[in-house]
């Protein structure tokens, strides 16, 4: 039952073949069975999930009209607030904090009767590409427990790949939904910036952060996308326009006559041979499905990584100033006569991990007078150039494509002491955030050299998210008929529940 996709689970709930309580319990059992090895969850809300499931079953018994995913369980990244449920962002500074309010994403999930199983592990404050920066220990990739599940949303991607949940919420500032999806053989979407409310999403880099849906199929991802998206008056950057029709696009999967642009700069040197081979193969399948493949150039993308590592730290140095030990969270050194400043200094020393400190300091530098123009100011100009590159490319193509990341999952610890090597993981995902457009990653197969999953990235213009779902669904269908079974069937068997 837990290996079904979310749409099938929903159909079985409707037909009465299974209840939400049974389905939720099956996932809680699975978590109990395998999560000691995977460590996808930071908190499991057994009681709350079962209560929510029982409430959905009662509504269904009464014949109430329910939403398409009602009663299906979900894993929530620990960066979103849920009233009364611990929210740590993977940081010691928020250990034990129970927010007094729901994020809008959680409000929407509850409105749709989607059952929230618990909170998933992540790099501290979403800063990282491996989930090794969590203060609560790393998450392990279900394909190979010695490898990383991607980051920052490695808990959500691992939960999907280990069949601990059929749906998950992620957030993507430079690739934190798409890169974890790529390295775990799952699907993840960063919607257009402003498409999903950021209210209650603990801010890292406000002009780049975007919450989005994660699942094991393109259609499941689309169903979750429509459940959480839409205008929110509580978020001043939320777009007040109809939600793109992504479910219809995922169901049709029609790419006939569509122009698919291959970004020349996001391929080639630095990309693992198996990643390139799977990418080329996917292009052939899309051409066979009726799409026209064209090449596009985005010359300024090579500066995207450098600009990102100025903009994101600058915004984070400002956003994380709120963790000042005064109103919530950790407080250290509050002895008689201690000043507020010394309490702040000591709390932030103990409460923040290495990468968070590194980025706060870098951001403080980039914003300081005398360096502002050279660093933050220049990075903002690069942002303009990248957006122009996208505008030009979208004149030649309906969507753009690339490999999601240059390599498959690396070993835990392999890049932990080399920040620049770690940052390179995001080279193909960052441009999307800089321009605020939509991006999807879906599995395109296994790399021959290591047998690990490879991701295929699709990028669509602002508020044209349905296009990436059409292309994603077409490619998924073509790959499925080629493989004969979902990619995750090739992952190692875990636990005793199968």
């Amino acid at each position, binding site marked *: 039952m837990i290996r079904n996709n979310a749409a099938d689970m929903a159909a079985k709930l409707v037909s009465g073949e299974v209840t939400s309580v049974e389905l939720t319990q099956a996932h809680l059992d699975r978590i109990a069975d395998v999560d000691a090895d995977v460590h996808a969850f930071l908190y499991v809300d057994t009681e709350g999930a079962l209560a929510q499931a029982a409430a959905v079953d009662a509504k269904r018994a009464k014949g109430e009209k329910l939403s398409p995913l009602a009663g299906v369980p979900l894993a929530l990244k620990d960066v979103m607030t849920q009233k009364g449920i611990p929210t740590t962002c993977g940081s010691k500074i928020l250990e034990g904090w129970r927010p007094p309010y729901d994020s809008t994403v959680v409000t929407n999930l509850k409105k749709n009767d989607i059952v929230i199983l618990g909170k998933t592990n992540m790099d501290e404050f979403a800063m990282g590409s491996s989930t090794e920066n969590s203060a609560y220990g790393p998450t392990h990739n279900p394909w190979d427990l010695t490898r990383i599940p991607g980051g920052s949303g490695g808990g959500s991607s691992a939960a999907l790949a280990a069949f601990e949940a059929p749906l998950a919420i992620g957030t993507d500032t430079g690739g934190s939904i798409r890169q974890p999806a790529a390295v775990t053989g799952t699907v993840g979407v960063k919607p257009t910036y402003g498409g999903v409310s950021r209210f209650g999403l603990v801010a890292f880099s406000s002009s780049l952060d975007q919450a989005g849906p994660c699942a094991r199929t393109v259609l499941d991802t689309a169903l979750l996308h429509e459940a959480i998206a839409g205008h929110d008056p509580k978020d001043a950057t939320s777009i007040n326009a109809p939600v793109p029709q992504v479910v219809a696009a995922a169901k049709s999967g029609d790419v006939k006559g569509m122009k698919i642009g291959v970004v020349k700069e996001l391929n080639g040197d630095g990309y693992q041979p198996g990643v390139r081979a799977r990418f080329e193969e996917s292009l052939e399948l899309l051409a066979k499905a009726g799409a026209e493949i064209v090449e596009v150039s985005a010359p300024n993308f090579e500066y995207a990584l450098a600009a990102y590592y100025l903009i994101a730290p600058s915004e984070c140095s400002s956003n994380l*100033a709120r963790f000042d030990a005064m109103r919530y969270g950790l407080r250290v050194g509050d002895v008689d006569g201690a*000043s507020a400043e010394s309490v702040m200094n000591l709390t932030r020393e103990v409460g923040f991990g290495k990468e968070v400190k*590194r980025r706060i300091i870098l951001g403080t530098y980039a914003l300081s007078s005398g360096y502002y123009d050279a660093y933050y100011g220049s990075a903002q100009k690069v942002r303009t150039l990248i957006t122009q590159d996208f505008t030009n490319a979208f004149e030649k193509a309906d969507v753009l494509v690339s490999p999601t990341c240059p390599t498959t999952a690396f070993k835990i610890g392999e890049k932990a002491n080399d920040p620049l090597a770690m940052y390179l993981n995001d080279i193909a995902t960052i441009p999307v955030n800089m321009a605020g457009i939509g991006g999807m990653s879906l599995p395109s197969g296994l790399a021959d050299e290591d047998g690990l999953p490879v991701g295929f990235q699709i990028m669509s213009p602002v508020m044209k998210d349905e296009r990436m779902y059409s292309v994603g669904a077409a490619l998924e269908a073509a790959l499925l008929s080629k493989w004969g079974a979902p990619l995750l069937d090739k992952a190692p068997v875990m636990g005793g529940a199968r």
Partner: protein
Amino acid sequence: MSSLSRDDVAKLAGLAVAKLAGLARIEMSDEELVNLSNEFTVILDAVARVQEVAGANVEPTSHPLPLRNVFRPDVVVPSLTPEEALSGAPAQEEQRFRVPQILGEE
């Protein structure tokens, strides 16, 4: 050219990072300061590339959306109760956040 030893250079770079750490309100050990300043040099070299294409004729972009101020009607709506707002406070007193002293003794 320079008569400074590697240790001296690291110490000087450490001082620069120490100033930034002070501005960011993060206490750091000497060892942390030296490690961070070493990494810092490498990272700054890498990100400085943005200057290659950031000409005077390029407009900066601070945000992907054209931001406008958003107003709501000036009516009272339910919000957090004092108990809820204080629920995460490290210390409280008389329904207020209790904080360490902000001004000096005098």
